[in-house]
């Protein structure tokens, strides 16, 4: 079966699986050998089988649209994205380096603020941060670690360089889909897993449990770990429930918890109140505790901050970690790494212009047609401008927004992010994608083997977010003899 059509390439993007000469890259050779051995129609038939399995397994995400919550099946492409192990090992080292430095940075900001005093990080950026929490000043969480779970978005540009696009330090989601994708692939193509050395991904729940358990304030006992969810209408509810199940943790909603006069957190059980040691919260700071943050939040637990400050409960990620999840702070990460670790960053940032800096702002206003402009604190691809695709009115609107509040905007060149062969109908076509590995830190550091590959399923689209028409692929880290 002729898999790669002669007119395969759409543009000059780097393709993860296919080299410019139209032949599979070395790490993907075994994959294509296998795919090529299948009878015509088999691939499409397996795709249909996997779609049915996704429906039956109820792997869904929730979209809020037209005033109703819709449960959508998770769109999945059956052609995996393959990364050679040697390349992955370098990326993994870079991810760990980055999170280590970011945690040192957060801890410093809430304590001595050496980095500001030493003139590396500008005071005005700190002062303009929406996610800097005054309530966290002077706290030193265990191991000095604030962000225990980080989802780092990586993209590859035309020349093959892998860049860090974003560090998601608040409540990053997607890891359950990474795990489910692998389950699906093993059900679907057991032959490939026999023929190739594909590194497993399924130790994540154990690693996450260990990361969380290490935060327990009561040493020596098996800690009670709870996953705090906003409830079934949250888009990532599937994941909250999945992770609780995989870790043997309790899935709780805010109304299941109460903070006692002794500052301990309790859950309401059929036999009365039971103490909780560690909370993996999947609720933003703002909604976590109506006593400390937004008083109108019905999702949170009154007194949770008090309990955390008193050291009676571990919370991951720690309140206030979001200060480093800011697209302006992002631009400083290479400097942050050099400052705290005295090392060069292993993974480069995408070049960025900060609108708060006069000459950068002038450049951005002048070249907005060619740039991607991002607000500092949004996630999920919301509120950004893709210059080359925007209308004149949208650009003018953004110019005004930038002039009004320069601290809140940064800009990057429009990258041609890489593609990978994706099954469209019954043939392969390139679709753009990114990669979100998950990195854990408490007592130990850990990075997932690969991560979640998100793919923009519409031809030519660069938006991979599931809320905006993205799907995903299994991600294989493979051993190859090169």
């Amino acid at each position, binding site marked *: 079966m002729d898999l790669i059509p002669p007119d395969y390439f759409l543009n000059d993007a780097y393709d993860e699986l296919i080299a410019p000469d139209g032949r599979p890259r070395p790490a993907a050779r075994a994959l294509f050998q296998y795919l090529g051995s299948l009878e015509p129609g088999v691939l499409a038939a397996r795709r249909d089988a996997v779609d049915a399995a996704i*429906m039956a397994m109820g792997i869904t995400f929730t979209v809020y649209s037209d005033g109703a919550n819709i449960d959508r099946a998770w769109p999945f492409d059956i052609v995996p994205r393959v990364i050679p192990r040697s390349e992955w090992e370098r990326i993994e080292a870079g991810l760990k380096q980055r999170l280590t430095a970011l945690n040192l940075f957060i801890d410093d900001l809430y304590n001595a603020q050496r980095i500001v005093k030493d003139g590396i990080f500008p005071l005005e950026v700190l002062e303009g941060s929406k996610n800097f929490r005054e309530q966290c000043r002077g706290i030193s969480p265990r191991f000095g670690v604030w962000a225990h779970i980080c989802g780092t978005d990586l993209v590859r540009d035309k020349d093959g360089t892998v860049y860090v696009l974003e560090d998601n330090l608040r409540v990053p989601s997607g890891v359950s889909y990474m795990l489910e994708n692998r389950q699906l692939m093993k059900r679907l193509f057991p032959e490939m897993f026999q023929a190739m050395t594909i590194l497993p991904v399924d130790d994540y729940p154990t690693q996450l449990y260990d990361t969380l358990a290490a935060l327990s304030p009561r040493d020596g006992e098996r800690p009670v770990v709870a996953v705090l969810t906003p409830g079934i209408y949250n888009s990532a509810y599937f994941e909250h*429930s*999945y992770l609780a199940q995989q870790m043997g943790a309790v899935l709780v909603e805010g*109304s*299941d918890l109460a903070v006692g006069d002794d500052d301990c957190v309790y*859950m309401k059980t*059929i036999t*009365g109140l039971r103490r909780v040691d560690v909370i993996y919260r999947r609720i933003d700071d703002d909604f976590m505790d109506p006593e400390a943050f937004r008083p109108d939040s*019905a999702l949170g637990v009154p007194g949770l901050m008090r309990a955390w400050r008193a050291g009676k409960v571990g919370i991951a990620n720690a309140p206030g970690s979001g200060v480093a999840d800011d697209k302006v702070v992002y631009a400083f990460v290479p400097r942050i790494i050099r400052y705290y670790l005295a090392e060069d960053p292993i993974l480069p940032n995408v070049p960025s212009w900060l609108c708060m800096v006069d000459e950068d702002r002038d450049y951005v206003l002048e070249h907005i047609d060619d740039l991607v402009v991002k607000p500092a604190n949004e996630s999920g691809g919301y509120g950004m401008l893709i210059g080359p695709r925007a209308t004149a009115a949208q650009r003018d609107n953004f110019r005004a927004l930038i002039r009004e509040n320069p601290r809140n905007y940064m800009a990057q060149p429009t990258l041609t992010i890489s593609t990978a062969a994706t099954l469209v109908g019954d043939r392969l076509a390139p679709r753009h994608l990114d990669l979100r590995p998950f990195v854990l830190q408490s007592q130990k550091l850990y990075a997932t083997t690969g991560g979640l590959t998100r793919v923009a399923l519409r031809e030519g689209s660069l938006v991979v977010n599931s809320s905006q028409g993205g799907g995903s692929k299994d991600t294989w880290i493979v051993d190859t003899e090169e």
Partner: protein
Amino acid sequence: MLSRVAENLYWMARYLERAENTARLINSTTQLLLDLPRGASFGWDVLLRVAGLDDLYGRTYGVPNEADIMRFLIQDEANPSSIASSIRCARENTRTFREVLPREFWERVNSLYLYVRANAADEAMSRSQRYAVLDGVIERRQAIVGLLMGTMSHDVAYQFIELGRNLERADMTTRIVDVNSAVLLPSDGAVSRAVLERLWMGTLKALSAYQMYRRHVGVHIEGAGVVQFVLTDSPFPRSVAHCLSEIEGCLAALPNSDGAMKAMRTAWRRLEQMRFEGLPPVVLHDYLDQVQADLGAIHAAVAQQYFYLHQARPAGPVGG
């Protein structure tokens, strides 16, 4: 076990049991109608009355007829007790405690939901199609029960599932028997013995009790014997007595169950005092009401003891 999760498990089990029993009741009633002589005092609206849904139906649909009643009982989401609603609620509940049940459980409940969504919404369903679809509901629901029995530890979560299942089952059994008291109430004495026998046979079939009755009681089917069998024959799994002993076992395995146990013992005592020989329909109806009230008291005691902490939420968001 979280109070909220216990409550959701309990209701999930009740919803699934209700869906299956409704499917059984509709199928057996369909069969029964084929055997009744013209002019017998029986209509589909009896199904509405025994389920206590006649008011709700009347407000939406008006005059009872088979097609509307079937739509109402099977697929109408505005009826909280319809098969589609019950299964949707069971699925929503299951989403809130996937972490305490075997993983396959969710897949099975989800597939039952998808089955009902794909098959039960057909407006123009013929009687034979309907029979097959409802049979599919029963079959899938039975697979779910089997899965739990075969794979789930008999832990606290299991006890709440069993509690909900048995309370709902006992309640539905009394309601299915009540179909006949509703038929017989306006009796003018002209109903022949053969028709009566058919009606009671219908009751037994709705409860999948026909064969067991014949094996354990006899081939002749008469009202008093049937009522006694389905209420008090404790070896038969859909009898009220059997459900009560299951409930007793669950309560014994749960902590602090004194209050619910007390309500349980009251229900037992009153069931044991019932006399069925020569029972007039009016008394039968009263008996069934009494059993339903006693089951309600057990439910209230369980809710008070185990779900209370969760239900006692603060009056509202602070500040708000």
